[in-house]
């Protein structure tokens, strides 16, 4: 037992969890923690310029590194500004711990306290209950270490997700006898699941009998570090691998059996083959509506095996023949072992021939390669310019779907996008977080002008904190994806999509002390990216493109994947 303040107990516990970075913005109700942070030699604080971005930075850090990201904000508006970032992490199963200040839990000198509508009071526990795995509000100094340990444990195990700790100001500043321990208290939390071995053998028999097996690799494969097992499985079954958006990077997209990502804006080869497969092995995916489109025609020829660590995902959206609840890597290893004596690495089959043919016919990457300054050419050029180790983040909208279609991800944790919540403004702060986690790797945010202006103020953070990333603004002066929908589905009745006077992104970058470049041809783009990659300061590359480029082909809302349409 040592006598210390709640703030000190918090920081000691965070250090014990090997936290080295906190993304945050301070304010009155979190001052005791910031005061204690001044004395920390182990934790770097990065001052975000908006709390939402602090949360996205923590998530970018988490998704690039696989470690828990930490963000911090004051009470009231600081805490509510975190909410979008927390919801994003919840939807994409990213492990972050959010720390918030709160007004005092007990009245001191008859000042206001929790429940009295004090200045900058918000019920962040109530607000974040449906978008966190769990949240805590310690009322004594002594309970802080166990709460911190439990928060990190819950955030990072099972299906990962955000956890929030709401810290009343008096609990931060009170002194107490504290035992800094490794104790965890969560008796109702089960992160380890006993795998049902009968399901493994059922799955194995199904796969052995499959003539046209297809693997669907989701974000769970990346979280579980199961890419090697997916590769082995694909080799063994001679099965093509499609990914979801969240699974992009879990299987190298240059592999002959990679067919790209499925979905509303997915690779037509992936969408087509999914409809032809007779057995679907879906791993670490929740069958989101944007991935499956209309469920009536989703993989309708296939018997389905679904591996997921979250039992509630089984049967939630898609009914399957063989559900297996468990960690993707562990389950795949068991499945590979069960298949080892039944199958030996195959040669080419009729199915692999069909895969090759479908890719040649349908994959947009194998079709023509324009030299104009259009998204496809830019993103294919970018892939050539970036080393395999580069991390790419995206914003949300057309930029994101073009990236999914045309930018080939080669490694897990190298493609970071807001999949579930679809948060515009996510990519740039996520890039900053990823760069902090992986300072030796180039990090590039593929942005649209609409998304970038939602978090451009983080240029101040990246310049001040010396976190150089590259932002490529595909600048079409419209909110492109909704404009596309209005064009295709609302008879070109454009409403509120034209951005009018967008900033001059070169000057904007320069105003923040960053580097601004403009590219009006593929050659200039090539040069600008090279310059950016060599730069010690964040670079914004403004790439003016036409305002009527569509992401095609696409699956109109309500239709099934086989109904993907549009010339491309």
């Amino acid at each position, binding site marked *: 037992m040592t006598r210390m303040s709640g703030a000190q107990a918090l920081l000691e516990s965070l250090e014990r969890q090997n936290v080295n970075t906190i993304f945050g913005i301070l304010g009155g109700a979190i001052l005791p923690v910031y005061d204690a942070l001044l004395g920390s030699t182990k934790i770097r604080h990065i001052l975000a310029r908006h709390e939402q971005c602090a949360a996205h930075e923590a998530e970018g850090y988490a998704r690039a590194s696989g470690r828990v990201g930490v963000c911090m904000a004051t009470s009231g508006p600081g805490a509510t500004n975190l909410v979008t970032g927390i919801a994003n992490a919840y939807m994409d199963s990213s492990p972050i711990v959010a720390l918030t200040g709160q007004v005092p839990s007990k009245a001191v000198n008859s000042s206001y306290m929790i429940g009295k509508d004090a200045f900058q009071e918000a019920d962040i526990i109530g607000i974040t209950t449906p978008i966190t795995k769990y949240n805590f509000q310690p009322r004594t100094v002594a309970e802080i270490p166990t709460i911190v340990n439990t928060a990190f444990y819950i955030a990072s195990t099972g299906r990962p997700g955000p956890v929030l700790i709401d810290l009343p100001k008096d609990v931060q500043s009170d002194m107490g006898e504290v035992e800094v321990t490794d104790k965890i208290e969560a008796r109702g939390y089960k992160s380890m699941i006993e795998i049902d071995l009968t399901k493994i053998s059922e799955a194995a028999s199904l796969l052995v009998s499959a003539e046209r097996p297809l693997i669907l690799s989701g974000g769970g494969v990346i979280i579980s570090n199961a890419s090697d097992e997916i590769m082995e499985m694909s080799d063994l079954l001679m099965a093509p691998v499609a990914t979801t958006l969240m699974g992009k990077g879990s299987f190298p997209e240059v592999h002959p059996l990679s067919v790209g990502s499925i979905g509303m804006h997915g690779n037509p080869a992936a969408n087509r083959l999914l409809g032809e497969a007779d057995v679907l092995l879906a791993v670490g995916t929740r069958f989101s509506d944007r991935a499956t489109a209309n469920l009536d025609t989703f993989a309708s020829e296939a018997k389905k095996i679904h591996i997921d660590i979250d*039992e*509630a995902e089984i049967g939630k959206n898609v009914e399957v023949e063989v559900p297996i609840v468990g960690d993707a890597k562990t389950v795949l290893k068991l499945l590979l072992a069960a298949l080892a004596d039944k199958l030996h690495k195959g040669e080419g089959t009729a199915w692999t021939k069909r895969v090759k043919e479908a890719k040649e016919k349908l994959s947009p990457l194998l079709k023509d390669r324009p030299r104009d300054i259009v998204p496809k050419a830019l993103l294919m050029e970018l892939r050539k310019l970036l080393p395999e180790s580069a991390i790419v983040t995206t914003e949300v909208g057309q930029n994101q779907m073009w990236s999914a279609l045309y930018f080939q991800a080669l490694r897990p944790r190298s493609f970071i996008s807001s999949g579930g919540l679809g948060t515009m403004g996510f990519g740039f702060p996520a890039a900053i977080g990823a760069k902090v986690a992986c300072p030796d790797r180039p990090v590039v945010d593929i942005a649209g002008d609409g998304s970038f202006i939602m978090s451009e103020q983080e240029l101040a953070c990246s310049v001040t904190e010396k976190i150089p990333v590259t932002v490529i603004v595909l600048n079409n002066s419209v909110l492109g994806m909704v404009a596309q929908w209005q064009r295709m589905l609302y008879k070109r009745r454009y409403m509120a999509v034209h951005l009018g006077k967008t900033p001059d992104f070169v000057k904007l970058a320069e105003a923040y002390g960053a580097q601004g470049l403009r590219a009006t041809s593929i050659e200039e783009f090539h040069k600008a990216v090279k310059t950016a990659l060599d730069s010690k300061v964040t670079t914004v590359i403004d790439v003016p493109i036409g305002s009527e480029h569509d992401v095609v082909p696409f699956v109109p809302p309500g239709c099934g994947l086989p109904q993907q349409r549009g010339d491309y």
Partner: protein
Amino acid sequence: MEAGRTKIISVLVENKPGVLFGVSNLFRRRNFNIESITVGPSEQKDMARMTITVNEDERTIVQVVKQVAKLIDVLKVEELEPGNFVMRELALIKVNAPTAKDRSDIINCVEVFRGRIIDVSTDSLTVEITGTPDKLDAFLNLMKATGVIELARTGITALARGAKSVRIDE
């Protein structure tokens, strides 16, 4: 779809603040309908028992149970096996009884339904009645003649029969 059949879920939870909010909020957000929910202490002092009645099809019930089980403050959750549980609900009913005949009619009904008169005033009687929801409905129907002034029902509480229990043995 097997609609119209009431299902009962017994949930053992941590006995601490915010847990009822967490569970009821999950039902709201996932679009599951709660018919009734009762909460009270359980056989273990740091655990509370919730009895939740839902009217959903089988597939939804499976989802409900899985989603509730995921909540960290939930220690155990099970759907009570149909036909293999006992359930009761309690109602307090204040009925109009302005005349002596009204009173005697009501008292007769209360006896048949094995309820109790727990308060009497010049114009009304307050009745306590316990039983299955059907029994309570039947009694309430009879009270329509004179008029129900106020009604408070607890919602269903239930336990599995005999050896089958939703509990945690520590």
